[in-house]
C-alpha cells in the first residue's frame, strides 16, 4: 500500500482515449500491475491504461495524474470516494455521474464535467470537482448533489437541468447557463446571461455563499476575495418552467 498512486502519461494518445476506469476509489484495492491492466478505449479500440500511463504506487485512494490529458475522456467516472489530482487539462466527461470524493484539475476540463451519461436523470450525485481553468459545455448538467467549482470560464449550458447541488463559477458563464434547473445554486462571480425564466428576487448577502467561499479559500486554497465572501449578490429564482426552486446568484460587488 502506498500513500498515493501516480499515473504519468508516458505515451500521448493519438485518438480520443476513454479512460473511465480511472477513479480514485477503484485504485484502493488494486496493485500497480492490475491498475496498468485496466481497460481503456483508444479511438474505438480496446487498450489498457498501462499502454499510456506509467503507474507508480498501488492500493491507494489518493491518485495523481501527470501529463496533458486533454484527449482523455471519462476520468473519475462514477467515483465514490478518494482524491484525484490531475496536473494538467482533461477531456470530456470528467467525474461523470460521480457520487463522492474530490477531483482537482490544474487545467481545463472538456464538456460535461460532473455531468450525466446520455439519458440518465442525474449527473454527479456528490463529491467535489475543482477545475482551475475553464470547462466545456454543460458542466454540472443534471447535477443532483455536490459541488463544482470552476476558476475560469464556463461553456454553454453550465448547470443545465440541475436537480440540486452547487456550481461556483469565477469566470464568465456561457449562454444557457442554468436552463431547466430545478433546484440548486449557480454562484456566478463573473458575467452571466440568465435565461428569461429566471426571475429577479432581490439583492442581498447570502450567508451560505460566505460560508461556501470561505470553505473554498481554506480547503481548496482558491483565491477568494473578501468582497466576494461578504459581497452582495443578485438572486434570480428559476428555472420557473421547472420547479423554480433553484437560484442563480450573481455577484455585484462588495
Amino acid at each position, binding site marked *: 500500500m502506498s500513500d498515493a498512486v501516480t499515473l504519468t502519461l508516458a505515451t500521448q494518445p493519438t485518438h480520443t482515449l476513454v479512460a473511465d476506469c480511472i477513479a480514485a476509489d477503484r485504485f484502493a484495492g488494486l496493485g500497480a500491475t492490475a491498475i496498468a491492466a485496466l481497460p481503456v478505449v483508444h479511438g474505438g479500440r480496446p487498450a489498457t491504461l498501462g499502454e499510456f500511463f506509467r503507474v507508480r504506487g498501488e492500493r491507494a485512494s489518493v491518485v495523481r495524474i501527470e501529463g496533458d490529458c486533454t484527449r482523455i475522456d471519462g476520468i473519475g467516472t462514477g467515483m465514490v470516494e478518494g482524491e484525484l489530482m490531475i496536473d494538467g487539462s482533461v477531456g470530456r466527461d470528467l467525474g461523470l455521474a460521480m457520487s463522492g470524493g474530490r477531483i482537482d484539475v490544474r487545467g481545463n476540463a472538456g464538456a460535461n464535467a460532473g455531468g450525466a451519461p446520455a439519458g440518465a436523470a442525474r449527473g454527479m450525485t456528490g463529491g467535489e470537482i475543482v477545475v482551475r481553468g475553464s470547462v466545456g459545455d454543460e458542466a454540472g448538467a443534471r447535477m443532483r*448533489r*455536490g*459541488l463544482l467549482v470552476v476558476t475560469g470560464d464556463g461553456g454553454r449550458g453550465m448547470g443545465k437541468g440541475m436537480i440540486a447541488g*452547487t456550481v461556483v463559477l469565477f469566470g464568465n458563464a456561457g449562454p444557457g447557463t442554468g436552463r431547466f434547473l430545478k*433546484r440548486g*445554486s449557480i454562484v456566478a462571480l463573473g458575467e452571466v446571461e440568465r435565461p428569461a425564466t429566471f426571475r429577479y428576487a*432581490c439583492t*442581498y*448577502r*447570502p*450567508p*451560505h455563499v*460566505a*460560508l*461556501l467561499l*470561505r*470553505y473554498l479559500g481554506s*480547503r481548496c486554497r482558491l483565491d477568494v476575495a473578501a468582497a466576494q*465572501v*461578504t459581497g452582495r449578490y443578485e438572486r434570480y429564482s428559476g428555472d420557473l418552467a421547472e420547479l423554480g*426552486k433553484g*437560484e442563480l446568484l450573481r455577484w455585484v460587488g462588495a
Partner: protein
Amino acid sequence: MKINGVAIEDTFAEAFTMRVARLLITGQTLGWAKEAAVKLTGFATSVIGCKCEAGIERELPDGETPDGRPGVSVLFLTMDKASLPEQLIVRVGQTVLTCPTTACFDGLPDAPDRLPVGKALRVFGDGFQASKVIGGKRYWRIPVMEGEFLIEETFGMLKGVGGGNFLILARDADAALAAAEAAVAAMTGAPGVILPFPGGVVRSGSKVGSKRYSNMIATTNDAFDPTLKAVTQSQLPEVVNSVLEIVLDGTDGPSIEAAMRAGIRAACRPGVLTITAGNYGGKLGPHHFYLRKILG
C-alpha cells in the same frame, strides 16, 4: 487548607451527568450575536424549573467562526437525551431565527450523537427552504423577511457535567457579593464551562425535597441560610452572615475543575471566611470535585 486566610473545607462538589450541546451563533456584529445568545440562554438557570441550563461560554473572534463573522459560543444542557433537542428547537426557533443577521452553527462537530435542530426548524420555510452541503455538512437556508437564516442541519450532543459548585461563606453580604463577582470574572470565558445563574451567582442554594411540602422538588438550603441559624441545624459558623453559591455546568470534568480553581482563588478575598461545596453525600452524582484536590 487556607488561601489568603480563607479556609477551604475538606469536602467536594457533587455534580451530575447531563447532555450538552454547543451552539455557535454569529452575527453581523458581536452585539447582535450576543443579543440572540442572551435571549436563547435566558430563563435557563436550572433544570428544576427551566428544563435546561444554558449560558454563554465565550465570545468568538471573527477568525474562529465558520462564516468569519463575530459570534459567541453557547453551551446548552439538559438532564436527558430527549429534552435537549426539544429545548433547542423551541428556543433557537424563537430567539436565533428571529434575531437580525444571525446564523447558527454546531460547535460539537465530532460528536456522533446528532440532534436534528436545523432539520426541524427548516419547515418554518414553508417549502421555500433549501439545503446546502458545504464541506460535508448540511445547512438549511430558511427564508426570512430580512434575507435568509442559515442553520446547520444537526448539532452534536455529548455527555456533559452539570452542577459543579462552590459556596462562599462571608462575614457580610457585601463581602460575599464582591467575592462572587471576582470569582465569576475569573471564570468567564473558561472553555467548556458556563455559569447558568444570573451573573453567574446563585443566592438561593437549595436542598433536595422539602421538610413540609411534599410536592416541592427543592427548597431552601436552610442549613446555609444565616437567618435560620437559630432555628435549624445550621452548618454556618457564628461569624458568617451571608452565603453565595457559584454553579458551573460544562462539557467535561477537567474543564469544570479548571474553572473552579480559578474561581475559588479569586473568591478568597478579605471578608470571606470559608469556601465550601454542596453535595449529597456522594450518592447522587457521579462527579465529585474535591476542593482541596483541585486547589492543591
